[in-house]
């Protein structure tokens, strides 16, 4: 898969269609986001962490082991998926969209290519709709997530509309979007659509209200207010953050005024959160933020029939929730 991505990136760069290709770079054993601007740099391109996943995964699993029961089926998937995915998409994900927003604010006339996963593409769609990026200035190169990662994320759509196909040998081949009905023979994943609500949400909903309150408070109380969830979020682009507004959330307190801090963020993210889960991954206190935002997404889709990122609707279709970066 990685060779195809490199070929596509090379073509795009050589044709001058894009000024740079935003992707991941592996250098000295470290992986990080990188804007590839010349063809010879592309040797370092990588699709994520495929070798070191074992340690990383076990640590994430441990972090959640007390709160979310570990799922044995993931273990088996992981074991089998590891050999297959050596050249495929790795597990580590980076907020490339966030970097792209920053780059294109500084170079508004240039066109950039970007490596997208399913969640990244949902993010791009929302950013287009919220006028943060110009769709004409972004070229997407899609990759699908490995099955085990998709299971772990409880992702509803772990692939973008078009993704680089692993099986076809013709270079630059991209597949059309596959409907849920045709999933069995074409989609890269077997369980295409997870059940709703997701397991993590459903488990909490089965609790009594009071237990649920205690459960959440216990998590929120651990918050060290590092703003990591906000800083990594590809959809957080406000110039002034409400979380730092003394009138909305009292500042200078640890743990932050709970649950206001987290709920304020959840409400703000209501029409934006595309369920990439980077906030949960970044959180040093292992607060299961993703579960909260998954629920927010469920509510949005119940109330307005739209789940952010899963369609190209404009903010006004979704409701008069805050629309721009300045409010």
């Amino acid at each position, binding site marked *: 898969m990685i060779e195809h991505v490199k070929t596509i990136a090379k073509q795009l760069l050589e044709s001058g269609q894009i000024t740079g290709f935003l992707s991941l770079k592996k250098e000295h054993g470290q992986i990080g986001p990188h804007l590839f601007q010349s063809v010879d740099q592309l040797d370092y391109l990588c699709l994520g962490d495929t070798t070191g996943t074992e340690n990383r995964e076990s640590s994430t699993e441990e972090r959640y082991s*007390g709160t979310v029961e570990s799922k044995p089926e993931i273990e088996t998937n992981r074991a089998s998926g590891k050999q297959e995915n050596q050249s495929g998409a790795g597990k580590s994900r980076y907020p490339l969209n966030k970097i792209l927003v920053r780059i294109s604010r500084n170079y508004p006339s240039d066109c950039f290519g970007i490596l997208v996963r399913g969640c990244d593409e949902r993010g791009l769609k929302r950013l287009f709709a919220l006028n943060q990026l110009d769709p004409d200035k972004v070229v997407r190169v899609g990759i699908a997530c490995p099955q085990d990662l998709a299971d772990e994320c409880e992702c509803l759509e772990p692939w973008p509309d078009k993704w680089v196909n692993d099986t076809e040998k013709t270079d630059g081949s991209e597949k059309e979007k596959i409907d849920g009905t045709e999933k069995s023979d074409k989609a890269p994943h077997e369980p295409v659509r997870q059940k709703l609500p997701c397991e993590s949400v459903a488990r909490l909903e089965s609790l009594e209200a009071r237990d*649920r309150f205690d459960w959440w408070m216990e998590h929120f109380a651990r918050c060290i207010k590092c703003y990591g969830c906000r800083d990594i979020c590809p959809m957080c682009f406000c110039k002034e953050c409400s979380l730092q507004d003394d009138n909305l959330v009292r500042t200078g307190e640890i743990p932050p005024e709970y649950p206001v801090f987290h709920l304020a963020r959840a409400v703000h993210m209501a029409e934006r959160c595309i369920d990439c889960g980077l906030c949960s991954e970044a959180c040093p206190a292992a607060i299961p933020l993703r579960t909260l935002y998954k629920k927010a997404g469920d509510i949005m889709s119940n109330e307005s029939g739209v789940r952010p990122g899963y369609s190209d609707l404009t903010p006004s279709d979704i409701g008069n*929730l805050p629309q721009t970066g300045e409010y």
Partner: protein
Amino acid sequence: MGECHYLEGNYTAQKRINFLKPLINFVGIEKERLHAKWVSSAQASELVNDITNFIDDLREMGPSPLKSKINPDSIKTDRYKP
């Protein structure tokens, strides 16, 4: 509805209320603690009635779970492994 001084302001408010109710319910705060009603300035008695009823409902529910302060020492740290 739609006769708001801020034009479509009450539609916006209703959307937010509809969103917030299930959300606070999800974090364990009874959704009945959030109540919205649309009354015009000419419907004073209706407003008074509604608020009185709401207060009665709240009394029945008892103090909010948010009132209970969490003791910092009681936060379980053993579940968290970095």
